[in-house]
């Protein structure tokens, strides 16, 4: 569903690449965690999938299509096939729950009757039935994130990208959100989730792709947040006794993602 072939992304010629010769394939219907410290390239990965940025070299395939070959007027079609959820929810504050979800359908020209049928259904999937007419500021963080998820999946995308969706939420609420993402995944949607939340990763036991300084240093099925098996040279140095990564003082941008 998503395939990276030797992808390198350089933002600044003088600095190290944000992604360095990444090869990765995520299959249809898979659930993958993208872990790594801030600055390790997780967000760049997601941006490349969305064609928000173009790879400096290498090829990114989404649903079998090389995104570099998609002309700019067809990019919207690519994005219709991808749902996105963010840490900060990004709801429209002056629209109620129903209108926020309906907005995603209105702007791509869905008819009013389809919207009336689909939106309550999706809100039920994320566990928000009966809260259609609440405004975002009347909802808890977890509920707001559920609205955001509902908006991301209302057009039935094949891929759901989640950029630290539980970053602003407490552990219990986070588990609720994970339950929803898992349910969406069960329905056949490929889910890629960038996260720092070790408890969640350990709980879910899904595929884990670990990035460090733009390089994939681990790709394990049914894995934990940190590796059980010793990994190659350079990263072993960074593991402390508890198995967690220590902030590397020499690397700018690292460590700030630890909460």
């Amino acid at each position: 569903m998503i395939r990276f072939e030797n992808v390198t992304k350089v933002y600044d010629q003088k600095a190290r690449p944000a992604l360095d010769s990444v090869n990765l394939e995520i299959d249809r219907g898979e659930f993958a965690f993208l872990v790594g410290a801030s600055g390790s390239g997780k967000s760049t990965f997601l941006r490349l999938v969305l064609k928000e940025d173009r790879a400096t070299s290498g090829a990114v395939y989404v649903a079998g299509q090389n995104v570099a070959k998609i002309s700019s007027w067809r990019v919207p079609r690519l994005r219709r096939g991808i749902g996105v959820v963010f840490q900060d929810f990004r709801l429209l504050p002056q629209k109620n729950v129903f209108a926020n979800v309906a907005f995603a359908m209105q702007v791509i020209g869905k008819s009013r009757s389809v919207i009336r049928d689909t939106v309550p259904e999706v809100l039920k999937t994320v566990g928000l039935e009966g809260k259609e007419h609440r405004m975002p500021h009347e909802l808890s963080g977890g509920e707001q994130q559920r609205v955001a998820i509902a908006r991301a999946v209302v057009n039935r995308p094949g891929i759901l990208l989640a950029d630290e969706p539980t970053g602003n939420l407490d552990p219990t609420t986070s588990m609720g959100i994970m339950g929803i993402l898992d349910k969406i995944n069960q329905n056949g949607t490929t889910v890629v989730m960038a996260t720092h939340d070790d408890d969640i990763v350990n709980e879910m036991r899904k595929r884990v792709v670990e990035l460090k300084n733009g390089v994939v240093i681990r790709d394990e099925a049914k894995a934990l947040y940190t590796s059980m098996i010793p990994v190659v040279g350079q990263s072993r140095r960074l593991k402390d006794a508890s198995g967690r990564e220590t902030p590397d003082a020499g690397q700018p941008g690292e460590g700030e993602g630890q909460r």
Partner: protein
Amino acid sequence: MRLAFILSEIGSGLRRNLSMVVSVILVTFVSLTFVGAAGMLQMQINQMKGYWYDKVQVAIFLCSEGSTAAGCAGGPVTAEQQQSLNSLLESPAVAQYINDFQYESKDEAYKHFKDQFSNSPIVDSVTPDQLPASFRINMKDPEKYQIISETFASQPGVETVIDQRQLLERLFSVMNGASLVAVSIAGVMIVCAILLIATTIRLSAFSRRRETGIMRLVGASKTVIQLPFILEGVIAAVIGAALASATLWAVAHFFLGEYMSQQYPDTAFISSGQTLILAPALIILGGSLAGISSLLTLRRYLRV
């Protein structure tokens, strides 16, 4: 559905940005009024030129019933007098100065008069008998007017010889100057309007960046994202253009039509209906200026 959505987006954009929208309307209104004023002056010049202005330079008016000029003591021009004037015009001595000439009968004169003064009350009180017949002469060199004048003024049956251009040219140069000034002011105001529209669209795009960000993410097309902003600018400019057209119509109707034509009944003025020709031009001009400037602004400030 998509149309309804775009319309509601436009509505909310206009409401949220009301003071800027009002200023866009006013600036386009003032600038297009100046453009229209220049257009009206040109139309007025054309109106005053009448039928003959561009075709001939000199008119030899022949005696008619009520003529009081010295040369008309013998009453209205006779057929023989007219014939001899005609052959004089064709004689080599005169023909070397003129390209061609035409005879305008009383009936033709009346027809041309009616066309020129169609907006003036004077047209109803004039009959063909009151208008003189004339020879209209197209000079090879308009400066040689004196020669024609000296040759014909003393001929029997000639009431007067007039160089029409000389009468009107000074007035026209004043009016042309005025329309040049109007166009210059309009130019400055239009630059002002374009910049203001660009700023307004920028503000509007900024205040709705959440919405447009989400629209991009869920795959809304470029048209759906950009059209509301562009139409906002175009609608404001078109309202300004409509106000400008209404103002020009009011000037023509109340100032020229009711005041000036009473004061100067022997001058041909444009009618208020004629200014309506300017309205579509102003609306298209305003709308396209706004459309182009907002499109260029969006290319810089709205990622799609």
